[in-house]
C-alpha cells in the first residue's frame, strides 16, 4: 500500500462474521477491496462503497383509520443520502383509510424511481 492511498473500512453485513473490508483508493483513483472472505462480501463492499442504498421504513399519518399511523416502506432500496429528504416528504403527507397492504401512498417519491407503499391493511375507524 503506497503512502498516497486512502483506505475506507466497510464492515460487511452479509453474514454474522462481519469481516472488515478495506476499500483502498490509490493515487490514480482506482479502488481495490481487501479483507473480504467471500464473493458476496466483495459485491456488498463494492455496492456500499460506490452507491450505498437502503430500504426506508417509517410511518405515515392516517385520516379516519383504525390506528393513527400506517407503517410504510420504499418498494426498493433508495440512495442512503436521500433518506432524510424522503422522510420529510412522507411527514408532509396524510393517507386515508381504508388502506390495503401494498397500496402506493406516494408515487415515485422525489423522482427516485421508488414508491412509498403501505406495509399492512388498515381499516376505517368504527
Amino acid at each position, binding site marked *: 500500500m503506497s503512502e498516497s492511498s486512502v483506505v475506507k473500512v466497510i464492515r460487511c453485513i452479509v*453474514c454474522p462474521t462481519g469481516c472488515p473490508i478495506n476499500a483502498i483508493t490509490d493515487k490514480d483513483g482506482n479502488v481495490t477491496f481487501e479483507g473480504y472472505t467471500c464473493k458476496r462480501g466483495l459485491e456488498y463492499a463494492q455496492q456500499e462503497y460506490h452507491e450505498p442504498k437502503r430500504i426506508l421504513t417509517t410511518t405515515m399519518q392516517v385520516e379516519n383509520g383504525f390506528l*393513527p399511523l400506517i*407503517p410504510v416502506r420504499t418498494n426498493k432500496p433508495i440512495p442512503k443520502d436521500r433518506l432524510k429528504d424522503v*422522510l420529510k416528504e412522507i411527514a408532509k403527507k396524510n393517507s386515508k383509510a381504508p388502506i390495503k397492504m401494498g397500496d402506493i401512498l406516494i408515487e415515485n417519491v422525489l423522482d427516485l424511481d421508488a414508491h412509498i407503499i403501505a406495509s*399492512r391493511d388498515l381499516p376505517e375507524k368504527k
Partner: protein
Amino acid sequence: MKNYEIDVAIVGSGGAGLAAAIEVKKAGLGVLIIERDRELGGITLQCIHNGFGLHEFGEELTGPEYVQRFINEVKKLEIPYLLDTMVIEFTRDKVLYAVNNKEGLIKIQAKAIILAMGCRERTRGAINIPGFRPSGIYTAGQAQRFVNVEGYLPGKTYVILGSGDIGMIMARRLIFEGCQVKAVVEINPYASGLIRNQVQCLEDYNIPLILGYTVTKIHGRDRLQGVSIAKIDTNFDRVIGTERFIECDTLLLSVGLIPENELTLQAGASLSKNGGPVVDNNLETTIDGVFASGNVLQVHDLVDMVSAEAKRAGQNAIEYINTRHGKDVKRRNQINVVPGENVNYIKPDLVNRSDLSKEIIFTLRVKFPDRRVQIQLKDETGRTFYTKNKVYVIPSEMIELKINLEKSNVNPDCKKIQLDIMPRPEVLVEEEE
C-alpha cells in the same frame, strides 16, 4: 358462563399462534385463537423495519407485511378468533378460562393447547438501577409501540441501555422522527445485536456505541434529567473514576427478553433455566397435549424461525389428538438434554427414546462469542458421538442443528446428552460455515 369446545386452542396470535392455527386448520381440525390485543398479529406488527420473511416467503418484508400474510390466510381459512380476550388460567385437563368485555368469563374445553404467548421485556426493576423514579424511562419495545403504532414520542433526547436488536433499531427509528440519540450503552465488551443493525442503525447515523459500560444512576425527580454511566470490569463491578453524566430526557432499556410463562407455570408445567417450558422433541411440555412454540419457548432472532417452530407444534398437536388424546399413553422413556460448556440453554430439554431414528431439531444459544469452535454431543459416560465445526458463534445468533441421533450412533440406552461448544482440535483442517 359461555362455553366453547374445540380441538386445539391457541393462546396468542403473533408469528407463532397464526402459523400454528393455519397448520391445524389445514389438517381439518377445529382451532380457536385467543388474543388479548385489539387485533391479530402480535408484536411483529410494531416491528415496522424490514428483514423478515426471507426464510418463510423468500423475500424481504417488514414485520407488518409478514404478519399480514398470515392474517390473510387465517381469514381465508375462516379460522375463528377472539380479540381483547385474556386467558387467565388453563388446566392439565386442557380447560382454558378467559375474559373479555363482551362475554365476561369464558370456558374453553380443548383437546390440545398450543402456547404462543411470546415474551416480555426485562425492566428497570430487573437490573436494579439506583435513583429516583422519574418519568421518561421505558423499555425499548414499549417505546416502539408508542412510536410506530400509537403515534406518540416518549421524549426528545435519548440514551439507550443495551445493544440488543430492538434497542439499535429504536435508535434509528427515533432519529427518523427527529429525536436525538446520545448513545447506546452496552455492558458487554461486544454489541449484543446483529452486525447488520450495528452498521445500519448506529454507524449510519453516527450514534456512539459505548461498550463495557452501564447506567449507574438515574438523575431527576419528576422527569428524567440524565443518566450516569460507568465502566464495568470483568466481574461486572463498577470501575471507580470512570463515571460520567449524559444529559437526556428519556432512557430506553433494551436489556433482554423473558418468555411469558405465568400461565404455563400456574398450570403446573416445568420451566427450564431460559424461562421457557421444558419440552420434548415434539415441543410438548410436561403436560400431555400442551405444546409450546415461538418466543414463549425460547426467544428467537427472527419471526421466520418462530413460525417454522409453530408449524411443528401444530403438526405435533394434530398427531397428539389423532393418536394419544383420551388414551392412557404416557411419555416416560425420555433422554435428558443438558447444556454444557459455553451453552446458555438448549431446546428440546427431553428426547423421546422412540424418536431416536427421526431428525431432531436442536436450538441453542452460546454464553459468549467464540471463533473456530467444535460443537460436541456427549452421553453421560463422556463419549462424544457427534461433532460439527463452526467458524463463529455469538449469543445473539441462535444455533440450529438437525441431528438424527441414531445415525450419529448415540448409545440408545443413554440417560443424558450434553452439548458442549469447545475450542476446535488443531488437527482438523476442514471448515464449515
